[in-house]
C-alpha cells in the first residue's frame, strides 16, 4: 500500500462523519488500494455497487 497513510486516515474519518456502513467503507478502501497497486478494479466495483445491502 503506497497511498499516503494520512489520506487514508482522512478517508476513514469522512466515512465515519457520513455514517457510512463499515462493510461498505471496507470495500471502498479495498478499491482504492487495488487501484494504487495497479490492479483491475472492475470486479470490486461490481461487488460494491450491486450489493443489495
Amino acid at each position: 500500500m503506497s497511498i499516503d497513510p494520512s489520506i487514508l486516515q482522512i478517508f476513514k474519518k469522512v466515512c465515519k462523519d457520513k455514517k457510512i456502513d463499515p462493510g461498505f467503507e471496507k470495500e471502498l478502501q479495498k478499491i482504492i488500494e487495488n487501484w494504487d497497486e495497479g490492479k483491475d478494479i472492475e470486479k470490486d466495483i461490481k461487488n460494491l455497487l450491486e450489493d443489495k445491502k
Partner: protein
Amino acid sequence: MDVKILGWDTKGLRLPDWKINLDDNGGKKTSLIMMPSGMGKTTTLSLLRYSFCDYSKIIEKKDILALQRPKSKITKGEFNLNIKINNAKYRIKTIFDFSNKTLSYKTTDPESGQKDGLNLPEEIKKYLDQEYIEKTFFDLEVVQKLFESTSAIDSINKLYKLYYFNQIGNNLDTYLIKKQDESGSGKIDKKDLIELKHTRDKLLKKEKQLRNEYEINNKKFENLKINKSKYSKIINDIENSKKSIKDKIDQARENISLAKNDLKDSFDNFYTELKNPMLINKDFKKKLINFESNLNSLKIPESVGKAFFDDLIKSNQCLCGHAMTNKMKDKIIKNKESILSEDTWLILSVLKSKIKEDSGKEILDLSKSLSLIAKSKRNLNIEERKADEIVGGIDDKKYQDNVKKLNETNDQLNDLNKFFQKYLEAPSKQDTLEDNSINKIGNLLKITMDKINEATETGNISDKIKLIKDIFKDTENKSLNFITNDLVEKINKEIPRVMPFEKIFVKDIKDKIVLDGRDSASAGQLARIGYLFLITLLARPNFNFPFIVDSPVTGMDEISRSEIATTIATQLNNQYIGFVLPLERDYFADVLEENTKNKVNLLVAFDTFDDETKRLVKLAKQYSVDTREFVDGVVSVNNKDFFWNFTVSKG
C-alpha cells in the same frame, strides 16, 4: 518503491558517444555533473525525461531533430539508461529515427530480458506521466512557475495521488453506463431509450472534449502569462535605459490615466442624471407633480383606516350625527375595501416625498452630459494615439519586437479569458449540446442520466455512485487542506535557515505558492522557497524517485547557493543529480561535499567536436584524466582535482 539512476550512454546523437557512470557502490545519492555551456546539459535532461515515460506519441518532430548531430549522416541515435528499481536492474533504450522522425523503446528487465517498448513496472508507470517527469527533472523555470501558475497545487495532486479519487470515480461512471446499456428499456419505449443513450454518449464526448480544451487552454494561459511578464520586463528595461523616452512615455501614460478618469466621471454623472427621470423631461415632471397631488386626495392607510371603520360600524350613530342604519353599515363595509394596503402606502409615501423634493429643481440638459462623454472619449483616443506614436517611434528592433509580442500575447490572453468565461457559464433552460460551458453540459448530462436510470432501473447504482463521489470529494478537499497546511508549516520552519537575513514566509498554497505579506521576491529567494517546496513534497510520498536539476543555482548569490546545497544534503532523501556550469561550482559543490561527508559524485564532461576544446583536453591530461576513452568527448568521474580546477575561460 525506490528508483535510482545508475548511469547512461549515448550513441549517434548530438552529444558525444560517451558513458556516464554514477557510482552506485559508494552509497552516494548526490551527483554533480559539470559541463560547459552549450555542451548538452539541457539535451541530457530531455533524454532522461524521454526514458521514464512514453513520449513516442507526444514528442514533436522538431524535438527529435534537435537531437541529431549537426552535419551528420547518421540516421539513428540511441540513449541507454541504466536504472535500479527496488534493487532490480533495468536498461531502457530510447531509439531516435531521424529519417522518419520517430522515437521507440526497448526495455531489458531482470525477468524477461529485452523486449520492445517502454516496459517499466505498472506501479511506477502510474506516476510517470509527462507532467510528473517535468516536475522532478526540472530547471529554474519550473521553480518560477510554482509562484505563478497552478503548478504548485498540481504537483501536490500528482505526488499525493489525490487524482486517484477522480480516476476511480470515472471507473464508477463507466460501470454505470455499462449497466444502463445492458438493461432493457423497462418503463419507456425502446426507441426513446436508444435516443436518450445516444444523447448521453454525445454529452459524454462533449464533456470530455471541453475538459481537454480547458486543460490545454489553462496551460497555454499560464505560459502566456509568463511570456507577458517576460516581454513587459524587457520593454520596461529598454524604456528605463532611454531616459528621455521614458519620461515621454510616463507623461503619455499619465495623460491616458487622467483621460480615463475624465471619461469615467462623465459616465458617472450621466448615469446619476438618468436615475432622476423627473428632471430630464418637462412634461414628465408635470405629470409626476400631478400624480403626487392626486395621491394626497386618495385613501388613508390600512392600519389607520380599518380600525376606524370597524369602530364606526359598531357605533349607533354616524359622525354626522345621523342614526346608523343597516343600509349605511353595508355601504361602509363595501367602501372600506378601497383602503390602501400598508405596503402600497409605504411605497407611495417614498415616491410622494421624492417628487415633492425635486419639484422645485430645474430641468437638466442631458445633451450637455452626452457631449461631455463624447469629448472625454475623444481626448482618451488622442492620448492613446500619442502614446502609440511615442512607442512606435522608438528605433529599437528588440523593443518593437517585444511590444508586438506583448500585444499579441494580450490578444491571446483575452481570447482565452472569453473561453474560460463561456466554460463556466451557469446552466439555463435553453441549454443545448452546442454550448461550451462545462456546467451546462454537466447539467444536461445529469438530466439525461436520471431519465436513463429511471428507465433502466439503475437508480440504485447511480445513488451509490453519488454517495461514493461525495465521500471522495470530501476526502480530496480535506486531504489537500491537510497537506498544504503541513507543507506550509514545514517550509516556514526551514525559512530562518535558508533565509537568515531576510525571512520570507509562505502564507498559503492556493494553486500557487502565496508569500506572506508580499507579492514577489528576488529570483534567488524564490528559488530557495521553490526548492524547499519541491524537496518537502518529494520527501513525503512512499515513492523515492530521482531529483534532477538543470543549472540549479545559476545567477544566485553565495548565500542562496550554500543554503540550497544544505537543503539538498540534509533534507532530501531522494537521489539528486545536478547539471552544473563551472560558474555554479563555488559555494554549492563544496557545501554539498561538507554536508554529505564527501558522499558526492563529482563529474566533468565536455565534447571534443571542435578545435576550441583542445585546451580543455590538455587541461584534463594535466590532471591524469583518460582523454582517449571516448572518440568525441571526455568524462571524468570523481577526479576531485580536475573538478575543482576545470575552467572554460582561456585565462
